[in-house]
């Protein structure tokens, strides 16, 4: 990922030369990020993988129409968010089908921490914090969750989030502020 500047805008001149190998490099660059975003949104590994594949397939089909008005990542993220919305809409319509999801339990999701130089106590504290953030994220609205994850997991700035979600920057800021208020409240409750 280091060799790839994730948010580098693709200028029109480059877009005209958009070739299959460029698509390959874009996929290599952003696949992990798209998967991570979808995984954190759904907490369902299989669903995140399926949606990532669908996203890349759709991007591949429409690669020739990509005009480079936004960065590749923004474009891919927009596709991913739309696919995710479509998925939940379809699930709601198909409520008579299997209603359970394969979403991972919050406690299980909180177990993951990078292996680093942490003491056992620090590890426990970190896991507790992560669990509280997950709990707050679960209670956010769909938009708040999307904005929150794009900001604090994917580290996009407000303008990029606005581009990805199609919302105004002010709206993004308001959603983010409310999401943070929830996380603060959740972290405050633990004390």
């Amino acid at each position, binding site marked *: 990922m280091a060799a790839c500047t994730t948010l580098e805008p693709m200028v029109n001149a480059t877009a005209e030369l958009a070739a299959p190998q460029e698509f390959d490099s874009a996929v290599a660059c952003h696949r992990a990020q798209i*998967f991570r975003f979808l995984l*954190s949104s759904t907490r369902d590994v299989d669903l995140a993988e399926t949606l990532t594949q669908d996203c890349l397939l759709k991007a591949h089909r429409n690669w020739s129409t990509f005009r480079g008005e936004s960065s590749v990542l923004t474009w891919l993220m927009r596709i991913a968010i739309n696919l995710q919305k479509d998925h939940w809409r379809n699930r709601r319509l198909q409520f008579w089908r299997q209603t359970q999801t394969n979403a991972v339990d919050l406690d299980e999701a909180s177990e993951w921490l990078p292996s680093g130089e942490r003491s056992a106590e620090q590890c426990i504290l970190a896991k507790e914090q*992560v669990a509280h953030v*997950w709990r707050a994220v679960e209670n956010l609205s769909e938009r708040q969750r999307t904005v929150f994850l794009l900001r604090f997991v994917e580290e996009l700035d407000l303008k990029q989030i606005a581009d990805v979600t199609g919302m*105004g920057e*002010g*709206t993004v800021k308001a959603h*983010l*502020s409310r999401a943070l208020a929830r996380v603060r409240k959740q972290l405050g409750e633990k004390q």
Partner: protein
Amino acid sequence: MNRREEDLQHAPDHDPLELEPELREALGNFKSSVNAWSEAMMHRPREIKAQARSSWAAPKWALGCAVFLATVSGGVYQNHRHLEAAKAQTARIAEQQRLQSAQRAQEEADLLAKVDNDIARQVPSALEPLASLMDDNQNIGN
């Protein structure tokens, strides 16, 4: 821009990027955790189970169809037998009723004949003039 969006834009002017140390630390841990999870899931070994399932799919369908057909044909056969039995029962009851009524009619006829025999007597010849007088008296009274 709809009303909801306007409301959101006029939300309290709090900078969402301004984080206190504890929140910053929690969000940092959250990001690291999601990162670690995502990395682990991307590189995990995949299991393929589809083959075993598909080989059983056809027999399952055949078995399902056979059970369904057996149930339906069993039901139809049972229904047919019930109808036949009901018809036979009805015929038997009708025959019994016919025999009973014939027997009752015969008995009544026999009884009447017996009563006739018991009541009807030949009038003795010595009383014939008296009997004719009784007939005349009746005619005069009228």
